[in-house]
């Protein structure tokens, strides 16, 4: 079945360093969403990408959707302690008359001050 692989599983950085997490699918996605979950919290929507090659920015966060719509990345420039949490991607697949949303396992980011 469809899977969305997310790497790395964990990442520790020093405050001020950059961070990137990647999502890869073996099949073409209709769209991809990114969420952030703080420790003990609930997932919070960050962004949705739909178009091939799309790049979107939110302050220090840059999101990319690959040309083939099979991979995506989230890059954080100059991390801050407020960036701590787990970042999830969720890929949308067409499944007959329905669409399915398949979640990656997340990348947990720790930031040392």
């Amino acid at each position, binding site marked *: 079945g469809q899977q969305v692989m997310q790497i790395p599983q964990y990442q520790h950085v020093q405050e001020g360093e950059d961070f990137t997490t990647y999502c890869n699918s073996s099949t073409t996605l209709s769209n991809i969403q990114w969420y952030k979950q703080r420790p003990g919290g609930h997932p*919070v929507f960050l962004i949705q990408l739909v178009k091939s090659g799309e790049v979107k920015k939110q302050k220090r966060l840059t999101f990319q959707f690959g040309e083939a719509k099979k991979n995506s990345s989230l890059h954080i420039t100059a991390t801050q302690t407020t960036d701590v949490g787990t970042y999830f991607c969720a890929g949308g697949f067409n499944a007959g008359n329905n669409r399915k949303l398949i979640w990656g*396992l997340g990348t947990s980011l720790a930031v040392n001050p």
Partner: protein
Amino acid sequence: DAGITQSPRHKVTETGTPVTLRCHQTENHRYMYWYRQDPGHGLRLIHYSYGVKDTDKGEVSDGYSVSRSKTEDFLLTLESATSSQTSVYFCATASTGERINTGELFFGEGSRLTVL
């Protein structure tokens, strides 16, 4: 954040007992979802609803049932709880999308269930 309230937030129960988790939303969102989150498995869809009295199974629906009699309420029932159902359960809603939504999901704060 969307007004999504889950209850109870924490529950400890014994194997074999029935458990009902409630999700209440004030956003009038059409779509509602129940997920469970477990280490190493991420978020997995249990059941979802695309309208009042319209529900369907997700990828891990065995042992769970749902009901949606009103737009604002989505109930998840474990008929006979097992230790494998110890998890954190999240309700989510969405206003747009298709039958299994691909629009933005709004999550509740979660319900931590422990089955002894």
